[in-house]
């Protein structure tokens, strides 16, 4: 039901990509920047003990691309877009908009849920990429501009040490899985919510709790699988 027909009307998915992606962009970019700042400081503190502070760029980039980019983006996405999806669907149900759609012989799963689901799956890797990119910039600002790590070393270590398939590819796979998970949980909670203010409120809370735990649990499983390959 979530497959097929939704893609025949890509305009619906495009609108949701705009809604979920564009409106999450600011929080993702700002969070990425601050995480990068912190990594610049903490990474330098650790690396300079071993005289390898020029590897700061590589440390920040690998941490973000392989791990924190997908995970933190998914957690932020659950809080920003997931709750919004649950509340929207729950309120549509409470306002009988889902029922009226069914009475018009329009399947709400195909018309309402499927476009939002696919938009979430598409948008998550893009947001994770933005998070990682702004995080690297944050690391560069702190490491290079503020502390004085050599700019050439910072960027050349990244260029030489990051593998497109192993590192960026694994991060991409993670973010797609997390997009799938968070959006599915958010839509399911909204669709199954009791059609009352209290029901919608509980469903929204469940979305954040369940999606966050699912992301962290899946992250461990995926990381373990990726290391063993």
């Amino acid at each position, binding site marked *: 039901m979530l497959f097929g027909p939704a893609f025949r009307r890509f305009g619906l998915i495009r609108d949701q990509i705009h809604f979920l992606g564009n409106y999450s962009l600011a929080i993702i970019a700002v969070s990425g920047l601050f995480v990068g700042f912190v990594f610049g400081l903490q990474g330098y503190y650790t690396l300079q003990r071993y005289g390898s502070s020029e590897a700061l760029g590589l440390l920040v980039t690998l941490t973000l691309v392989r791990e924190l980019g997908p995970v933190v983006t998914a957690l932020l996405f659950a809080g920003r877009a997931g709750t919004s999806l649950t509340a929207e669907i729950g309120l549509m149900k409470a306002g009988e908009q889902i029922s*009226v759609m069914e009475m018009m012989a329009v399947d709400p799963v195909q018309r309402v849920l499927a476009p939002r689901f696919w938009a979430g799956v598409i948008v998550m890797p893009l947001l994770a990429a933005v998070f990682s990119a702004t995080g690297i910039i944050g690391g560069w600002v702190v490491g290079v501009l503020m502390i004085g790590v050599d700019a050439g070393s910072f960027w050349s270590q990244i260029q030489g040490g990051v593998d497109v398939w192993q590192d960026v590819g694994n991060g991409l796979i993670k973010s797609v899985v997390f997009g799938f998970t968070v959006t599915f949980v958010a839509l399911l909670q909204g669709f199954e919510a009791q059609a009352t203010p209290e029901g919608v409120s509980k469903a929204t809370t469940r979305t954040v709790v369940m999606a966050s735990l699912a992301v962290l649990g899946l992250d461990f499983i995926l990381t373990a699988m990726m290391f063993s390959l």
Partner: protein
Amino acid sequence: MDSSFPDPLVELRDLSFGYGERVILDGVSLMVPRGKVTALMGTSGSGKTTILRLIGGQNRAQKGELRLYGPDGFQDVGTLNQEQLYAARRRMGMLFQFGALFADLSVFENVAFPLREHTTLPEGMVRDIVLMKLNAVGLRGARHLMPSEISGGMARRVALARAIALDPELVMYDEPFSGLDPISVGTAARLIRQLNDSMGLTSIFVSHELEETFSIADHVIILANGKVAAQGRPQDVRQSDDPLVSQYVHARPDGPVQFHYPGPSVEQDFGAAPAPLVPPSGQWT
């Protein structure tokens, strides 16, 4: 069964429905005559809205038959699969109690919604049809407004325009008059009658407004205690000597439907040894 209307569009035969242990409809038999305006009345919780939901296939009866007549005989709505049910629903329009407009779409887009979902009409034709439907409910000029910018009465009229966008055979109205001011009640009642006659519809509406209902309905059904207490022409129902129907149509506070919820007597509650606040066995006898 009422024999004054020989041509039904919808017919319920010995139909029962409940939620768990709670029986809502108990062996109900009634008919909705084709081309007429039928009013469903009755006390709160008597199953009026449930009947609309059963006709629309949103609930399934536990016993009995719900016939929807078409050119090739009838279908039992309770036995249809999703594809057949959606095909049957395209012959129906439903107005929900509070309109249930899509909050993120304008008045125009709300009415255009079923046209865009079920047809491939060019944009110009969609525009013309939507404006015609909005004109029929007097809201052509409000097409650009959002649902949050219109009153409850207007929202219901927009929902009505949306319900008739695909020219259905049957239009169901769930309490179209509730919460409306007297002018809006009169407008809504006139609209139901006018649209039914001008578009050749069959209408069924749930209502508690006695005067408006009796003035526009061709056929009145009164439900009580999960059964049909009376059905027939408004004048016949009004003159019924059934105590329950008489209490309802004359709006008497006491009668077979009691004012007081069952509980301990006044003497018991205010005497020397007051009754407990919660009944020991779950309910008062």
